[in-house]
Every structure is written in C-alpha cells, then in structure tokens.
C-alpha cells in the first residue's frame, strides 16, 4: 500500500515513484541534486546523450496541456537514450470516453517502464501509482493543486547553484499559493533542506487554510515580506483568477503583489529572483525585474532538464 510519502521509497531505500516531496528524506533530495549536477554538462556537449536508459520506454501522459514541462521531460528522457512517447491524452482517449485507468492499462500492455503524469486533479499521480504494475515508476509532473515535485527539485537545484548552502537563507514565495502545486512542493523541499526561514506573501484569498502548519511565516504586505530575503520565488497568476471573488483586477494585484525593482530593492542586495513560468509580465512580475541581473529564470529551465534526467535515471536504476 502506498502512503503519501513512504511508498515512494522501496525497502532498499531506492526511489520507486516521485509523487510528492512531502516526507522525502533530505538524503534523497540531495541525491537528486547531486546526480543532476553530474548531468548539467551533458547539455553543453556536442553529443548530448548518455546510454543510461537505453531500451526503456517512457510515456509522458499529459491529461492537462503543458508545453514547457512536457518538452523538458522529453528532452531529459532522450538525453538518457530512452524511447519516449508523449501523449496529450486530453485530446485523444479521454474525449472518446476512455477512463484514465483504461488508458494506463493499454500503455502498460505496450510494455511501458515509466509514466510521467500531469493531471488537473490533486492525487492523480498517486492514483496511477497505486494501479500500475510493480515494475513501472510514476513521476508526477503536476497534479491539480497538490504537487509538482520535479519543479520543486529544480528550484532547489537553482538555489543551491547560486547560493550554495541552504541553512542561512531566507526565502519568500510570493503570489497565488492557494492554487499552486509549485508552492507546495517548494515549501516541503525548503523545509526538508533546512532553510532559515520560509515566507509566503499573498492576500488572504490566495492562501490555503492552515498554511502556517507547513512551517511558513505568512505576510500579506509584500514590502514586509521581501525585506532581507535571499531568494524571491514568484508564482504564476492564472488568467481566470485575475478577476472575480478572489481578486478585483490584474492591475490591483500588480500594485500589491507584483515584483518591481523598487520592491526587490528591499530584499538582500544579492537576492535571486525565480519564476516557474510561464510569466505574466506586468501582472506578477515587472519586465525590468524578469530580464534584470538578479533573475535566474532561464537557468531554472536549463537545470530543469538535468534534474528530470536525475529523477528518471534514479527511478529506472532502482529496477535494473
């Protein structure tokens, strides 16, 4: 039986699935980051391939549209020499009325070794992990508002790359925490890795209840929330949240929670600015900051490939 964290690791301490960062031990997180570090240089070579996953078949099962995450998973799999097939399930089987379980079982019958799953429902990756045959690994590429563990890991990789040690860092996560699987994964990882302080900055309408119990300090005033922080992690505000009963307008949101050069000046002088993308310029972040010297948003994308390679190779290595 899978529980939410323990079931991701098998009896021998190997990673079976990657579903959430909640409950994953510090050594596992660091092992992913260290493995990823060894893969970064592969992307800079002329021949960007290693044979680690040769002969393995990986299915990218995207029940929810995505360009960036799907592409980086594809590239990561290809650089590991796996055969990778990306399925935009939303536009094929599901519209024909096939259930998710049927889709998964059909792909199993094609001798899949790994599923990379994105789905709009929280817990979808857990559901698939519970139903696949025991040799198949599941990577959660985003489930509803719950978790996006590879994004959380690549963010940790980026922070470590630019800041070194986690222990002295103050980190602010700013924006729509309520709807964000990225924020939840970041919080779990930052806590496990032991940063000095995790802050979340958002209006009350965009915070889940009980967020303090995850070990964060809540700020509603962005100028206070950013004061002295070493890392600013911005979150995307989706279009449909920009007006209605959560927020009055994108303009007022930018006024209160948009990252401008003036607000960034309150953070530590060498603070880095991160964003999981895609950015809404002029809504959650000003272009001057997004393109400025403190932004590490493009390196996040590059490191994302290495981190996903690390995760896939560790999962596949666990069974070979």
């Amino acid at each position, binding site marked *: *039986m*899978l*529980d*939410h*964290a323990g079931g991701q690791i098998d009896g021998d301490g190997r990673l079976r699935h990657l579903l959430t960062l*909640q409950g994953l031990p510090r050594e596992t997180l660091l092992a992913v980051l260290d493995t990823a570090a060894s893969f970064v240089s592969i992307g800079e070579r002329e021949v960007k391939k290693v044979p680690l996953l040769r002969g393995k078949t990986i299915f990218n099962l995207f029940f929810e549209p995505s360009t960036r995450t799907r592409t980086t998973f594809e590239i990561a799999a290809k650089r590991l020499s796996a055969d990778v097939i990306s399925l935009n399930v939303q536009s094929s089987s599901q519209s024909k009325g096939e*259930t*998710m*379980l049927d889709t998964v079982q059909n792909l199993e019958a094609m001798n899949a070794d790994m599923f990379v799953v994105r*789905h709009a*429902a*929280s*817990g*979808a990756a*857990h*559901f698939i992990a519970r*139903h696949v045959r025991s040799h198949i690994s599941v990577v959660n590429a985003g*489930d*509803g*508002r*719950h*978790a996006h563990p590879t994004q959380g890991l690549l963010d940790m990789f980026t922070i470590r790359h630019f800041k070194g040690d986690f222990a002295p860092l103050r980190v602010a996560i700013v924006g729509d925490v309520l709807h964000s*699987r990225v924020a*939840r994964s970041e919080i779990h990882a930052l806590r496990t890795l032991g940063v000095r302080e995790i802050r979340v900055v958002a209006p009350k309408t965009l915070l*889940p*209840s*009980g*967020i303090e*119990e*995850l070990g964060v300090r809540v700020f509603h005033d962005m100028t206070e929330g950013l004061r002295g922080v070493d890392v600013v992690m911005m979150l995307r505000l989706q279009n449909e949240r920009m007006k209605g009963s959560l927020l009055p307008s994108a303009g007022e949101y930018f006024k209160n929670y948009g990252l401008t050069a003036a607000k960034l000046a309150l953070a530590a002088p060498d603070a880095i600015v991160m964003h999981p993308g895609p950015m809404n310029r002029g809504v959650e972040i000003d272009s001057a900051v997004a393109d400025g010297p403190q932004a590490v948003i493009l390196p996040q994308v590059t490191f994302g490939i290495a981190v996903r390679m690390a995760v896939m190779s560790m999962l596949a290595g666990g069974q070979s």
Partner: protein
Amino acid sequence: MKISLLGGRVVDPANGFDGVVDIHIAAGRVAAIGSAPQGFQANRRIEATGLVICPGLVDLAARLREPGLEHRATLESEMHAAAAGGVTTLACPPDTDPPLDEPGLVEMLKFRARNLPGPRVFPVGALTTGLHGETITEMSELTEAGCVAFSHADAPLADTQVLLRALQYAATFGHPVWLRPQDSCLARGGIAHEGAVAGALGLVGVPVVAETVAIATIIQLVRLTGARVHLCRMSSAAGVELLRAARNEGLPITADVAAHHLHLTDAELPRFDAQLRLVPPLRSEADRAALSAAVADGTIDAVCSDHAPLDDEVKEVPFGEAEPGASGIELLLPLTLAWAERAGVSLAMALATISSRPAAVLGLPYGHIVEGGPADLCVFDPRAQWTVRREALFSQGRNTPFLGQTLTGQVRYTIIDGHVDFERH
C-alpha cells in the same frame, strides 16, 4: 409462522431491558417475552445462546437507487443488504432519478418494496419539485402516498425564501422537514474539510462555516415557522454546538450523523483514497470527537448508514473526481458497536442510536421489543469478527472506506414482521 428465539440476551434500550430471556413470535407480532403462551407450538426454534437480540435496526438514510439508478443498485440488492445488516426499517432519501416528487413515484416504490423480502421502506419526499429548489411539492399528496418527511437530499437549496416558504407550508400540516445543513455557496467546489490537511494536499475545501451558516439559518427559520426539522449528517464540532443550543432552547430539531463520521477524519486523506470522498467531508479529529460526544449525550439522536451504493467506475478515479458516498448499510451495526467500545458507551446506548432513537425521529412504532408489538428483530453475534471484503457485501455498491478492515459484530438473523428475512451461519 411461529418462531421461538431461545436463550438469547435481549437488549431493548427503549424499555431499559437487558437480560437473557426467550422471545416467541406469532402472526408478525411478539407473542410473548419469557415463557411461551399457553399452547404455543413453534414452527421454528432458533437457538440464540451467546447472541444478542435487539430491536430491528432503523436506518434514517439508505439509498435504494430506485427509480432510475438501477445501474448502481436495485431494490432487490439493497433490501437484501439492509436485511443482512440487521435493518428492519429504513428511510430513503428522494435523490433518485427522477426525484421522489410525485405521488405515483412514491406509490410505485412502496409497492415494489412491499413485495420484496427485507425492511419496511419509508420514502422521504422531495421538498421541491425535481429538487431544483424553486417550487414546493404536493406535500399532502405525497404524505398520503407514503412519505414520512420531506427533504432536499444533497441538492443545493440556495434560495432562503423558498426554504422559508417550504418550512411554513410543512409546518401548516405538521410534516417534518429533513435538511442537510450545508450552505451551497460556501461549499461550492469543495471536496474535503477545509483545514491544514486539504490545504497541504491541494484539495478544495468545504469550510466548517458552510455547515454553521446553514444551521444558524435553519434555527432562525424554525423559530419563526415552528416547523419540525431534522438535520441530516452533522459533521462539525461548531455545528454540534449550535444544535445543542437550539435543543436547549426547546426548538423541535433533531439530528443524525453517519456512522463513518464517528470513525474517520481528514487525517486519512493523504492516501488520496477515493473511498474517502464523502459528503459532508470527513473533518478533523476534534470534530469527530465532538460528534461522538453529541451522540453519547443525546444531542445527536441517531447514527445512520448514509448508504450510497456506487458503481466501481465512479470510484476508480483520482480522489477529487470520484463521486461522493459510501455503501454502508451492512456496516451500520459493527461500526456503531465499535464506536461504543471506543467512546465507553454501553451496548444498550449504542443500540438505541440505531433503533429506538431513529424510530422516534421517524415517529414510527418500531425500534423496541414489546409483547403485542411488531416482531422486527436483529439477532447478532457480538463477538464474531469479519473482514470487510467486496465479496462479503450483499450491496451492489462495494464502495466503502472500510474495505480490508476487520470489524466485530455480525448479524445472524433478521426478523421482519415475524419472518426470518435473512440468516447467516
């Protein structure tokens, strides 16, 4: 058919009786408790030593899925499941397809149920036509057809003016109104108890205020109209406090809780098990403890199964996409016994919450054992342990969060109207 039940421990909470005594049944009635009447010749003698004989269970919420939802379950399957659970009287909510909003539908259901073995079936009529929350139903006609109360099931009744009018109209004729206290706007989109667990898991919350706002509204409308209201499926400590205050004030309000809410909390949710998707949602341990205490002190009158058989397809999906509900009528007795054990409540008190107390809510002459009264009895082995497996259930719905768990207490005989409608050896 004349039956003698010999040597069983008879527990009749309504009359405060608990002792080993024989019961003799004839012509659908309890002919005698103790020695057999002069010249009594039993056609069947049932050895009940070591077993408990209690009033047949009364379940305030069991969906039989007819009319219209026969792909989920049939009257035959669910009435058999009810009998297997020791239930001899049940009320079924109006959330069928179409809803029970016309006398013809109710008469047909009553007729079909009467011709099948199994419990006495008392439909709860729809409070508004189609459960759309707009037009009140023909409550007098529906009562004549067999409805014992009127309810909105889990359908939203957002318009408080309609609610007020419905309560006024029901109060005019003394019809009881059963309401699920949930503000449909505050609960919109929610699938789990709003709190730290749902927050961390990224599940949309149903806040406790969705229940308390609704209860506060209902209490004020009861004060205004004098309607008799039954609150279905209490879920929160704060809701229980409002209920307790209303009862202390003397308002005609009763309430029930689903058996699973006395055992489970949102702490189970990180498994994302779709069987835990329930309405109302499983709340915190503090809420569970308050519900348990409220049943023990009588603030909550009855424990019910909230039986909702579903087909596997709607549960074999991620948590948030699953349909809410659990099949529970066969677990009502063992879950109530387990609750009593955990809460330190006597066997008689436990049995009262699933027999005499729900019978009193219904205002029907069941849920007790008296000479000359209806022979509706549940005979169970209080020590028998059994594991909840799919194949162990008679209900067509195998959707229960208790699958795989071992429970104590199993029905041996269910006697309804003097007939052995179920037996297990």
